């Protein structure tokens, strides 16, 4: 893909091409923005341009040996660094490890060591590092020297969803390019082109706040998360205290069913990541439902429905709105966000969901923790 084919990120692409045109490309970039808005795609296209031997109008030519190799995914000077590279580490003890964050040995072996060798057939090398929000302080400190002045005039692009997780020392060495969320219409258009139902597309577009990647991922029809979501919300709207334990169990087993199914579609993915993704989706849906209920309480059913994320299940939302006052909703939403943090920290998921669901009943079993 070329830079000119990137859609909806005009500002980011413009920043990159103008700097390139002026011969002032930075040697270290942070591409910042939520998941699934084209950061990696843009990084790839930009890398292709940086490596291209005869760029045309600030874009890669697509014809030179460098571009051909890039298209064939066998460019020796393009390196994608991600945490699962630990599986091909030269040290067996690293290969066996289950990785949760981007470990320092991956950064050392696949970036810091590789950057020292001269490029093979382009004038420089390009490194794209995925999920840098998961870099710990140790790994970031190891990177500092290379970021400051990459050897061989190499380019390093860090992809990041949470800029706050990067140290100030890392941020100050890089130029930050912001990637905004995509518009709802574009996502609906793209998903519809794949044969996804319009109502479903609209729901995913709204749930993930403009992330095409996430929407595409969850709208995968085999197995359909959308169907499960409808079930889930209907049950939530009527949830009684006595059902909580069984329902938490159901969420867990459903989440692991999805994890297994997704793993089959993409065997290289990290299993625990996919598991967390499934669980996070349930929490996101809960958050969206309570937000919708709040909207409904304030503006009344017909007016709210147009703008709701769960516009397709007004009945369920209405029930929630009747059961919970706006203040109660807000309080619960806050706790749900807390749960996402628990999931990311790999807290026992059964407890997380039980806790979560207890919040969806009128009972006051779960009192707010004293802060």
């Amino acid at each position, binding site marked *: 893909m070329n830079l000119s084919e990137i859609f909806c990120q005009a500002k980011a692409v413009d920043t990159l091409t103008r700097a390139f045109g002026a011969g002032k490309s930075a040697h270290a970039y942070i591409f910042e923005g939520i998941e699934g808005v084209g950061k990696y795609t843009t990084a790839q296209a930009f890398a292709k341009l940086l490596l291209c031997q005869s760029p045309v109008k600030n874009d890669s030519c697509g014809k030179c040996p460098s571009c051909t190799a890039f298209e064939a995914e*066998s460019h020796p000077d393009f390196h994608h660094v991600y945490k699962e590279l630990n599986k*091909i580490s030269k040290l067996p003890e690293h290969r066996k490890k289950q990785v949760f964050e981007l470990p320092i040995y991956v950064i050392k072996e696949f970036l810091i060591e590789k950057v*020292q060798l001269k490029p093979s057939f382009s004038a420089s090398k390009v490194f794209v590092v995925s999920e840098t929000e998961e870099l710990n302080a140790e790994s970031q400190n190891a990177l500092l020297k290379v970021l400051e002045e990459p050897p061989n005039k190499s380019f390093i692009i860090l992809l990041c969803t949470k800029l706050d997780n990067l140290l100030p020392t890392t941020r100050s060495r890089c130029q930050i390019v912001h990637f905004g969320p995509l518009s709802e219409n574009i996502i609906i258009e793209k998903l519809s082109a794949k044969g996804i139902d319009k109502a479903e597309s609209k729901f995913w577009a709204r749930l993930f706040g403009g992330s095409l990647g996430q929407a595409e991922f969850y709208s995968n029809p085999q197995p359909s998360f959308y169907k499960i979501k409808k079930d889930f919300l209907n049950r939530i709207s009527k949830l009684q205290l006595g059902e909580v334990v069984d329902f938490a169990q159901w969420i867990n087993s459903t989440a692991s069913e999805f994890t297994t199914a997704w793993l089959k579609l993409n065997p290289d993915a990290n299993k625990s990541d996919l598991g967390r993704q499934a669980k996070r989706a349930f929490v996101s849906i809960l958050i969206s439902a309570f937000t919708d209920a709040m909207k409904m309480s304030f503006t009344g059913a017909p007016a709210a429905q147009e703008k709701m994320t769960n516009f397709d299940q007004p009945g369920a939302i209405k029930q929630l709105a009747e059961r919970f006052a706006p203040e109660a909703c807000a309080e619960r939403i806050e706790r749900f966000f807390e749960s996402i943090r628990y999931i990311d920290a790999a807290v026992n998921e059964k407890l997380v969901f039980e806790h979560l669901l207890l919040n969806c009943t009128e009972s006051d079993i779960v009192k707010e923790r004293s802060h």
Partner: protein
Amino acid sequence: MKVKFNRAALAEALGLVTTVIPARTTKPILQGLKILAEKDKVYISATDFEIGITYLIPQAQVEKEGQAVVPAERLAAIVRESVDEVLAVEVAEATCRIKGNDSNFTIYGHLPEQYPQVPGLDGSPQIEADLVKLQEAVEHCLFATAKENTRYALSGILWEPSGKKLTLVGTDGRRLAKYKLNLNAEADKKIENEKFIVPAKTMALLDKVGAGEKDKVTVKFVNGKAIIACGKVVISSNLVEGTFPKYEDIIPADYKNKVQLNTAATLSAVRRAALITNEDSKGVKLALGKKSLVFTSRAPETGDAEIAMEVDYKGEPMEIGFNPQFLVDVLRVIREDSFELQLGQPDRPGLIKSGANYVYIVMPVSLS
């Protein structure tokens, strides 16, 4: 493509070529090797994007020209286990058939167009030497290069061509090995006074190439790459970026305490003394006195050792400590029967000279 290979010759070639194939990679095509058959020549090449190797296979009959990418490990295993004298390899699209007398294998490969280019030697070489001599020089320096170091320039061997000489240097910051090699002809004027750092991995590969006594090796540095051609094999490698430390300044020239030692006897003495060392006290003490050199080691709660050697020494008596591994490494590669040990003060590096070409310096350890 259809080629008849002599099995033994092919097995030998694969033994070397497959050492380049990465065991684990994100790009499956790199686990294949490329076979190129043209007229009367068959080449096999492999690359991991950093090192590339091309091997001209002897005793191969080309029946149909062409090229193919075949999974390396499988092919090597089939060739190794087969007993036939001749193996016929036929490739159509990405399917490879290997036929022996009583055997028939089909393995699936990749399309050759997708395989990355492996550079060959074209144009005139810049350095020419005897392969055996270059390998000897590499062996003398390779062990001293850094295995784990954040200064990546030290993870390679420095090449410094000048006139009819080529200096190779390897160091890890605690020891340094320097070998001066005679070239067959003057090095190209274009690379005079230039420095190149070749990765240790590449040098180790060059050392593995089977060498006949008269084999020549030619080297060319171009576009950040070293291209080394020796006999049937061409090795290409990306160079290491960075500046090599100024090694000339740290080789001491003012030492007066010199002693000639027997290589094998010293190696044995150091190894024996090293038996009584542990993680906490790695040092072996060398006490040099009139007519004797005594190696002692001591480890708390373990014991101590003392090995005495007769020597002909006229200088000041002195004591100095070394990491025994750093001595064992160098004594293993010295080919002469004896070498010269030079010492200054106990806190200055020890210097070992062997023949006219080889210098090794090693930092002492404090034994107090």
